[in-house]
């Protein structure tokens, strides 16, 4: 571990978190590719429970969100909060604790999912012992992050820190409230809520995990690394602040759109739908801010392969944040719900936005962290095209599959009976799942190229010592 000094940033922990994040990306995307193959050839679980779709699917989602996503968010939050506060990390040993404890949690939690421990709450599948550990590590993450902000030497709190701060506070609140449960054994608990209330709390959690982790957290990444890449200030700082508060206020209401036509009051569904439409405004305010910031920095594209990932991630962010409100409309949702369109929508966000912006950020950070050039710009460019092709193929195949499913299982004949059986419809989806499998393999191979490229960049190198710069007295904490 690096020596604790007062004027050098703590970057070793950042490098370690990036490495873990990439390992989880490969493992969890690999699991995703495997389960997509299982939907075509169900026999490849070889009769093993732990290889079955029901157990590998939560491993895939938890591995991506908590392994790949949260490790990347911790890495980028630790990197950027030091540089925007002009101080080294507060409690660096606690930061190292967060780093390793989180990886241990993802590993053991993943194994528990394979063993069949599952709360059955989507994206909150981990059982109660893991939930307690998550809460403890998350509070430690908050102590390091807010401690660094509290000891900052520069007066303004930069916008990326507001988003990372919202991520930490809101996820803590959602996680604790949604996971309140009565344990009956070490591997089994029952939710404190029942029936419709349980569903409402679950999707208040589920949708806002998407909102504050996969959107808000990664917007924090965007607001720091995009201007850094572009070497330009954010196009409109005022707009970024307005967008932050509008985003924070409106996102928290949108959860009930996951429960259209369910046994919750209709006005709650309508509220969720209306707030989802309102959400379009702050989402696109941020989109415009990002696009306009990068539009003046086009010369950077000549020398910086990573900027392309961030530019494209904004296009997919625009798609996903438009598609979501549209799918929350009841007249669209009646067709799209329970179909593969939803899976396509999630992946336009997860692959096109989250993964692309993270890849762009890693390509930016890693060479700077060790003070050397990227091992291969050519490989990074190949990765870019693989990521784009994989994402497009995934989305389009799931659009077609989803719309077909929605129409087929809502089709009725002249006497009002269903025209097609559910089983027959699902059996006819194999060709689309084949396309999706190819898309997943293309995307995964791009990620493997990045892993190799960054491994070669890091090989034998140590973190460069970056000193804290002097603060302009006009902006200093008095």
């Amino acid at each position: 571990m690096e020596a604790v000094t007062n004027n050098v940033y703590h970057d070793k922990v950042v490098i370690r978190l990036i490495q873990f994040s990439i390992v989880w990306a490969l493992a969890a995307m690999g699991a995703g590719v495997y389960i997509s193959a299982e939907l075509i050839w169900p026999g490849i679980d070889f009769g093993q429970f732990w290889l079955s779709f029901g157990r590998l699917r939560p491993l895939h989602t938890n591995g991506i969100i908590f392994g790949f996503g949260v490790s990347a968010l911790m890495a980028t939050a630790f990197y950027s909060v030091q540089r925007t506060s002009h101080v080294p990390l507060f409690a660096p040993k606690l930061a190292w604790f967060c780093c390793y404890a989180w990886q241990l949690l993802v590993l053991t939690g993943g194994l528990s999912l394979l063993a069949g421990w599952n709360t059955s709450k989507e994206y909150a599948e981990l059982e109660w012992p893991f939930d307690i550990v998550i809460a403890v590590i998350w509070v430690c993450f908050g102590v390091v992050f807010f401690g660094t902000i509290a000891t900052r030497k520069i007066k303004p709190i930069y916008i990326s820190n507001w988003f990372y701060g919202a991520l930490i506070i809101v996820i803590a609140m959602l996680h604790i409230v949604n996971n309140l449960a009565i344990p009956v054994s070490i591997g089994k608990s029952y939710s404190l809520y029942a029936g419709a209330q349980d569903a409402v709390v679950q999707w208040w959690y589920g949708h806002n995990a998407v909102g504050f982790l996969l959107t808000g957290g990664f917007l924090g990444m965007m607001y720091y690394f995009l201007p850094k890449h572009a070497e330009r200030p954010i196009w409109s700082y005022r707009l970024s602040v307005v967008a932050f508060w509008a985003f924070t206020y409106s996102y928290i209401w949108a959860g009930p759109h996951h429960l259209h036509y369910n046994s919750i009051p209709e006005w709650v569904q309508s509220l969720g739908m209306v707030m989802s439409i309102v959400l379009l405004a702050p989402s696109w305010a941020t989109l415009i801010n990002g696009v306009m910031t990068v539009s003046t920095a086009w010369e950077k594209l000549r020398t910086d392969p990573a900027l392309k990932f961030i530019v494209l991630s904004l296009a997919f962010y625009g798609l996903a944040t438009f598609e979501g409100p549209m799918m929350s409309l009841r007249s669209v949702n009646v067709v799209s719900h329970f179909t593969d369109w939803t899976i396509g929508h999630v992946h336009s966000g997860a692959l096109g936005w989250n993964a692309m912006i993270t890849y762009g950020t890693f390509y930016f950070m890693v060479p700077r962290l060790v003070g050397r050039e990227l091992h291969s710009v050519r490989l990074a460019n190949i990765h870019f095209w693989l990521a784009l092709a994989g994402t497009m193929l995934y989305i389009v195949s799931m659009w077609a599959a989803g719309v077909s499913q929605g129409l087929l299982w809502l089709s009725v004949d002249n006497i009002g009976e269903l025209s097609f059986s559910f089983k027959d419809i699902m059996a006819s989806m194999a060709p689309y799942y084949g396309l999706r499998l190819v898309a997943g393999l293309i995307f995964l191979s791009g990620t493997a190229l990045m892993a190799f490229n960054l491994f070669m960049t890091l090989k034998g190198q140590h973190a460069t010592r970056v000193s804290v710069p002097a603060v302009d007295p006009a902006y200093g904490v008095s």
Partner: protein
Amino acid sequence: MGTEIYSHLLIRSLYQPIDAFQELAKVEPSPMGVLFRYTIWLLLLPPIFSLIGAANFGWRLGADEPLLLPTNSLVLISIGYFLALVFGLITTAIISSWMAATYGASANFGKHVALITIVGEPLAIASVIHLFPDVFVNLLVLIPTMMWSMYLLYKGVPIVLDTPPERGMLMASSLVGWLLVAAVSLLGLSMALWTLGVGPLLGV
């Protein structure tokens, strides 16, 4: 600088797109001329192919039974399809010329209409696959065509609109963002219309 584009430019763009783009860069065509002499005719192809295919064979969405709709319903859907394509192309050209100031590109509206027409042309031609109305087969043909169209967009923007390749890449990516949103809007609009009773009989 000429004001006319000729039909050979559209044909050439299919096999020598870079040369066609360079040729287009030298002219400042009238937007209405391009629209009514070339674009509209290309945009008629997908709805016509779709109408013929669906009326004769019915769309196969994956199940064994094809989805057969009454002819008047199909005509209505095809007219809607055509209007959506015209609306999509014109709004894309308007957005593209609006973006031009940000990316230092040519603001000549006729060039934008011509460029978007050339980018969309392979898709309009490949829509001949609508004559075989099986969703998966259509997907197999239209996905590679869509990738080709995206390639044309990324290559065409800097050449036709006279902006550096890096700046053109940013503009093309912004247009891709818009086109993705437009595509999903079309999907959402179709779903909403279907649930309101236009199209297949749904149990909603």
